[in-house]
């Protein structure tokens, strides 16, 4: 085999693997991406029912209702709009009134968000970034919250 042929084999192997990977990436991107929505986006932009999206906001205090068989219903708000969410399963330890949460799921025809996962964060001082941004956008961002995020002092109960 000549030097040229060897180089050709090397290059075509590289291009082959890269092409294969690029194909996989394009294919995977088309159906494993979730768009993030605030409750306002969800209500006003009329996301088609059945589309998988990610919804983030604060749990409306007093809205959490626990039903049978681990069914939970609560509302998620960005201070402007609130969206009712239903979920079946165990909520994370940090789930509570007023806590920032991120949920994945679909909106049904009646405007209820059916979540199949609910995430709260490890650290109670931490606000999910999307939620913080959405709150800022709605003008409901309080310095208090901002302080709570950083290494500042904590609100005393």
């Amino acid at each position: 085999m000549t030097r040229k042929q060897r180089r050709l084999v090397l290059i075509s192997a590289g291009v082959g693997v890269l092409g294969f990977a690029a194909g996989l990436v394009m294919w995977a991107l088309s159906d494993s991406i979730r768009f993030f929505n605030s409750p306002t986006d969800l209500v006003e932009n009329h996301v088609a029912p059945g589309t998988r999206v990610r919804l983030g906001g604060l749990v409306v205090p007093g809205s959490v209702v626990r039903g049978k068989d681990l069914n939970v219903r609560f509302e998620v708000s960005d201070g402007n709009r609130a969206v009712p969410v239903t979920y079946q399963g165990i909520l994370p330890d940090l789930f509570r009134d007023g806590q920032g949460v991120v949920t994945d799921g679909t909106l049904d025809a009646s405007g209820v968000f059916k979540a199949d996962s609910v995430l709260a964060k490890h650290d109670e001082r931490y606000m999910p970034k999307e939620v913080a941004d959405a709150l800022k956008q709605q003008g409901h961002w309080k310095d208090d919250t901002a302080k709570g995020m950083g290494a500042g002092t904590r609100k005393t109960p």
Partner: protein
Amino acid sequence: MIPELGHYALVLALAIALVQSTVPLYGARMRDAVLIRVAEPAALAQFAFVAFSFAALVGCYVTSDFSVATVFENSHSTMPLIYKFTSVWGNHEGSMLLWVLILAVFGALVAAFGRNMPATLKATVLAVQSWVASAFYLFILVTSNPFLRLPEAPFEGRDLNPILQDFGLAVHPPMLYVGYVGFSISFSFAIAALIEGRIDAAWARWVRPWTLVAWIFLTLGIAMGSFWAYYTLGWGGWWYWDPVENASFMPWLAGTALLHSALVMEKREALKIWTILLAILTFSLSLIGTFLVRSGVITSVHAFASDPTRGVFILAILVLFIGGGLALYAWRAPLLKAGGLFAPISREGALVLNNLFLTVACATVFFGTIYPLVTEAFGTKISVGAPFFNLTFGPLFALLLAVVPFGPLLAWKRGDLQGVMQRLTAAFVLALVGITAVCIVEGRPVLAAFGVGLAGFVIAGAITDIVERTGMWRAPFPVATRRAIGLPRSAWGAAFAHLGLGISLLGVVGETQWGSEQIVSLRPGDKVALRHYEFTFDRTVPRTGPNYQELVAQFTVRRNGEMIGVMQPSKRSFPAREMTTTEAALMTRGFGQLYVSLGEAAADGAIAVRLYHKPLVLMIWLGCVVMAFGGALSLSDRRLRVGAPKPARSRAVLQPAE
């Protein structure tokens, strides 16, 4: 007084680092032996000062000095001593100090043990290492001083995030950091080679042990982190493709590629320029990992409180070192002499294929991690979830695994593929038997059968490698044993590392394909069946720990009617942070585990419970330990021993021809 001393020591370390960054480099250019010799004592002194600074911070934590802001934020006087100690790095400031401590340790080790390196190379390496160190000292002193005092000392601290009060945390970050930071040595060597404009097989021999050390720790660190998430988070998951996990996984992939390409360079003086690039990229990915975790630019389940000015600072460090490194590479790499040639079917060819798959797989992970950041800059917020990574990384890695057994059996320069196929016959047969067995027993999941076959092939391939080298079966037993003992440790190391890979894959397949789970609401006396097991919820008992209250639920587990044990998952509440954590109960059955964790308790006495049966799950981490063991064996190889110039002749006689 102690915090101020610690702070001062850190400033002095920065001063020394600045001297170390410049003087030896100038000395190396001017061939001035006196200036060159500055590097070694400077590296040792730098280490001494950082170590003092770190010890001072540890002192503040252990004595619960709440006048120091980070101690107040992250510690509590009632915490067990071990967690007072580990909370030093359970927060941003402390963990960055640990980062630079490890950096200084590596610098000092190079200074102390790199005896037989050319003086100029050593001086340049230490200078480059010190650039990185200076940048991070500045970062700590300017944006995240761990010794900051509060105007008034509070009476009590705010406690460490309870989820971090765990032995896993004591071990996970230091290991991960040794891995991340260890790659800085490879980076420094690469930059030094570019500055010197000279690179050869000896260079690869000096770099490989350091890369191996970093790789071993990174492997164990990732495994530890995965295990920690598995048992503390209460959802039984061991990998989420979370950005923070990816941040540690990308350097691992690139580092693994680097180890293999450095092998080619050491043995055959080929792939030199590529190896340099990989060394730069691996450390760049470590830096990007630090940036992703520490800047808060990404949403992650693991994200810790963070602050944007730090993000900007780390970003600047990132641009400086990655941009600078790559620019230097573009400028100087063409000056390096290209390496030797080899046939596509050869050990080198196989290692190139390995590098190709590893780097491309790493690129897909990188893409998936960074893509949301890019789209966000254009106003669209998206999240890329686990399915993306499974669909892209999965097939690429499966292909890589399928070729793993071929590599070690191929000869250098020009290999005989047909011969290798023949020698792998047993492995092929085993893989096929595995696939058919799974198909017959389980029927449905094709993926599981394929996975078991692949894992079997990788494991059998690793064993075949050793069998072929020692001539077991063919040669009489004593001869084979003698050969096995005489085999270079690095050969054993490679076989063990590949074996570990197969074991981990088997665990992944078992857990994902055959695992079962139930989420139910239970009252005392209720029974749940899961696979062959029956769980009876007996009662709940309240208990008090050192700094928490807990509610323990007791389950009796039966298999086919026979009691096999009691499991006690609990829910802990930490008053200092008004936080609750879930403590899962685990029961080991062979390589599998039963896993029970609690959800919230309802007013009527019912409690939400997650039950899992996870077959073979322990193999995932066992495989990682075996991989790391392989790395350690390889590290102990006399040819790679730090400072060993050449293999001793007397032992070489015992080594069989390869």
